[in-house]
């Protein structure tokens, strides 16, 4: 399936952000961009991540190093939340075993 790509210039203009910022996010491995016909594009499924990083930078004045750390911790948080859900469901399974069929 072909991924929809958004020109980086459009994103920079819409969000009033410098292209350097987006390139720095890529250098930190936080987003992935694609070059096509010598132009830089962002795959559409990366957009929500990019907008989240922009909010962290603009709303909270978090620098790139901070965004990198926050992103890592948010991933961990998400994994832990998923693990809690899975464990709660497993616990529910054992609780059901104690109930008569």
């Amino acid at each position: 399936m072909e991924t929809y790509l958004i020109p980086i210039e459009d994103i920079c203009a819409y969000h009033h952000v410098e292209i350097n910022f987006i390139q720095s996010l890529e250098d930190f491995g936080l987003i992935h961009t694609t070059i096509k016909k010598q132009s830089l594009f962002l795959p559409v499924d990366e957009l929500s991540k990019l907008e989240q990083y922009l909010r962290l930078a603009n709303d909270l004045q978090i620098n790139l190093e901070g965004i990198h750390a926050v992103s890592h911790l948010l991933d961990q948080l998400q994994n832990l939340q998923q693990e809690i859900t899975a464990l709660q469901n497993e616990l529910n399974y054992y609780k059901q075993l104690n109930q008569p069929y």
Partner: protein
Amino acid sequence: MDYIDYYKILDLKKDASTEDIKKAYRKLARKHHPDLNPNNEEANKKFQEINEANEVLSDPEKRKKYDKYGKDWQHADQLDAQEQQRRQYQSNSGAYSGGSSYSGGFGSDDFSDFFSSMFGGGGGRSSRNSPFKGQDYNADLQLDLLDAYTTHKQTLTINGKQVRITIPAGVENGQKIKLPGYGAPGVNNGPPGDLYIKFNISDDPKFKRKGNDIYIQEEVDLYTAVLGGEKIIETLNGKVKLKIPESTQPGTTLRLKGKGFPVYKKDNQFGDLYIKWQVKIPTNLNAEQKELFEKLSKF
């Protein structure tokens, strides 16, 4: 609408400096920012309050009005005009000495619409100038185990709007999915919020789910357990005929590979189905049956 104490929200004294307000806002925003508190409605609400407070207190003009008129601060110009008119009247009539400041005389309900129009009906972020993402919506969706077994479409009504969503097979109980852009509209051309749907999957009386595996208990009569035989059982995707080997012990568990629950967002991948045999001991034996069992017991 109740009076909102913006100083209290930002944990500030009335004489706080601009720098104090900025610091307090940043400190609380870092704590309650929705991006740092995913799936936390309480933090989201708190962040909106902090934004409202900061919006008013960080603007000297708005703050002055808020300090003077409290909850009615946004009607300051109107109230000032009334005050001026009153003074004029007093000075003309000469009946009063005047000089007392207007303390506001409207009931708290008089301006409730005003606040909500200013800050958005859903209490969205409150800047008049900066674009802000719309409020995220949260919804719970009740599903049966069988609903979660297949990918299907469902129409939900979210804040009066019909939203048709695809529910992928294999969703877990308690799992949340995000539908970007289905939340409240953005403020000042900001992007719309997102819609988070939490799935609540009811327990099934027969099929017990553990991850992607399904567990069931099936009864088998004593004679089939001893001599062997066949039994047709129901699975989540139809009936299956099973061979029961002779001398099957009570509690023996059989695994049917790939007959369990679909793996979330992985095409053609399924967990396993575990069948635990419960051997049913015959009851109310007649005399002949008892005699036969007695004979057997002597072997």
